[in-house]
């Protein structure tokens, strides 16, 4: 017998916690790739290298504090349930991980706080806030001429990596998003969340690959291997697993999920082909999330 006949409000906290657990391998990887490796190359101090490990944790703590301020002191909630259940710390952590070019924290961190307050006002609107954050951030960085996604190793060595190396995580891309392997590990962890929309990442990745592969057929200098390497470096897997499947901004109905995956694949495939790179999946997710209410009506 189910001990509690109804879900108690801690279920949402557990869902958020599982997301964070799924992100831990990526946080560690981002530290190894962007912090430790750079420290070993004597380009930054040891303490400087720790920022990639500490900042995601500090952001989560900071935003939880802001949530307490919001709910307990501004909204005068009697208990901490809303704080505990809030997905904002998780979203902010994601925002940092998916976007965080290493030299632009002065933009990223304030934008995270702004995102948190946008969350309060966009509650009923189906706009994927993580995708919105990324599109805005990339826009600001491009406008300021600061767009530099290259991590230290890739930027300094400029090596062409094999398919397997790309899959593991070597490659040019924002912090933590370049590893297909860790994306898949995260997906497996998220399968333990019974409320995770597990079909959405699969549809997104499959349709992206179909679209990008079809385009590759018409380009003489692009092979299927290049398409796969591009998929790992553009954060398609990360975005599909962690961002596209955020339940509140994606369809509930089976046919809607399929249509969402197709739309994502189509838009992301085209944007990558025209050279938009790492921001492509977020533009695709942003657009697909806006039309999610329509997708849910597909029979």
């Amino acid at each position, binding site marked *: *017998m189910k*001990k*509690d*006949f*109804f*879900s*108690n*409000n*801690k*279920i*949402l906290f557990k*869902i958020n916690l599982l997301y964070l657990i799924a992100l831990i391998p990526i946080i560690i990887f981002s530290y190894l790739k962007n912090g430790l490796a750079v420290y070993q190359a004597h380009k930054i101090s040891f303490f400087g290298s720790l920022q990639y490990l500490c900042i995601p944790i500090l952001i989560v703590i900071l935003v939880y504090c802001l949530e307490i301020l919001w709910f307990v002191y501004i909204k005068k909630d009697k208990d901490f*349930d*809303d704080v505990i*259940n809030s997905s904002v710390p998780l979203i902010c952590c994601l925002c940092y991980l998916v976007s965080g070019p290493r030299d632009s924290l002065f933009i990223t961190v304030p934008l995270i706080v702004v995102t948190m307050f946008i969350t309060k006002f966009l*509650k009923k609107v189906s706009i994927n806030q993580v995708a919105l954050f990324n599109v805005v951030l990339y826009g600001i960085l491009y406008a300021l001429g600061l767009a530099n996604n290259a991590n230290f190793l890739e930027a300094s060595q400029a090596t062409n990596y094999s398919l397997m190396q790309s899959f593991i995580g070597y490659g040019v891309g924002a912090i933590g998003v370049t590893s297909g392997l860790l994306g898949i590990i995260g997906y497996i962890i998220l399968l333990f969340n*019974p*409320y995770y*929309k597990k079909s959405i990442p699969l549809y997104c990745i499959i349709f992206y690959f179909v679209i990008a592969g079809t385009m590759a057929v018409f380009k003489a200098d692009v092979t299927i291997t290049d398409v796969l390497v591009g998929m790992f470096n553009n954060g398609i897997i990360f975005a599909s697993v962690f961002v596209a499947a955020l*339940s*509140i*901004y*994606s*369809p*509930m*109905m089976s046919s809607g999920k399929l249509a969402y995956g197709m739309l994502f694949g189509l838009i992301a495939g085209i944007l990558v082909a025209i050279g938009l790179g790492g921001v492509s999946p977020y533009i695709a997710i942003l657009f697909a999330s806006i039309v999610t209410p329509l997708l849910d009506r597909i029979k």
Partner: protein
Amino acid sequence: MKLTYKFKNSEAEIGSIDKKEYLDPEKVYIYLKNGDRIKLEDGDKVKENELVRVSYNNRKTYSPISGTCHVTDNCVEITNDHKKNETKEKESLKSFDDIDRNKFMKLLHDVGDSVNNHELADYFEDNYKLILVNGCDIEPYQFNIRAIIKDHAEEICETVGLISKIFNVDVDFVLTSSDPNLKKVSSEADRYNGVKVTSLNEGFPYTLDSLLKDKLYPQYSDKDVLILDPLDIYKIYKALKYQLPVTERYVTVSYADKDRVYVVKTKYGVSLKEILSDILPDDPSNHYIYLNNFMRKTICTNLDLMVVADQVRAVFIVDNKGIDPIDCIKCGKCVQICPIDINPMASPLSGDCIRCGLCNFVCPSNINLLEENKKEHV
């Protein structure tokens, strides 16, 4: 793949179920409706099984206890005098062998016991292709039907055998596969022609009458099948054999906790508050009280007015802390689990909804999707 949640309703899953008897209550209440004729006056003494009320459609209600009547405009309140031997005696029939259709109908009419606000005899006026005895505990974590079967398996099987014989109709006695009475009922039913026992592997919501019929006998229309439950059959038995009503009822009382599940054998018309205050140590006011299907979240707001009746199968006492609704996370589980493929988040809800409450059960946000005010969370 369709998401299903299998409620086995198995006692093994629960651990132990305490059986309690509450057959000597302080008071019973018989509510009155327009057109009811009362056979007693204020201050009258009444014996157990003595006629109290006859409704406009000839349903008869008998006193479940002996005591003193207090008659008001909308209720007959009987205060128990605790005299066990004050019982209206009737002659008992030695066997069912000489009962034919006419005698069957006459005896049922005379007693006038009822099902769903209709006289029991009315159900046998029409011809049916099948009589389905739904011996499953209809909703999750209810154990009262199996308690009735456990106490009266022989009588129930004998009665369905008689019904099958005199109405020349097949009877299917359906029990869930986890029901410990299955073996006993099967061996009893084997003695009667035309009676078969079906073991149902599926749990709720296929235990609901309409879905059960559609699942087992999709070839028959609704009017071809009469669906009764074991209590109805036992009422027939008692009417035929003793010309008496069944005044006992079984109610599952659960504290939403596997360590505290009770099946209470009590009397018709007993206040739920009296039963709960007797068997539960905690103050019920600190909890939500849900009636029957806890997933439907029908909160019983005024326990003082609630009495044991045919429609009261179970009472679930749920701690009211930490189950407040929060905003929908659009996980879609409610859509996945809906047995009739509607969208429970739609407002207003589709008219096809069977109100099984499974959507409420899987909702991580604790939204009552069967209610109109869900809009503020969805």
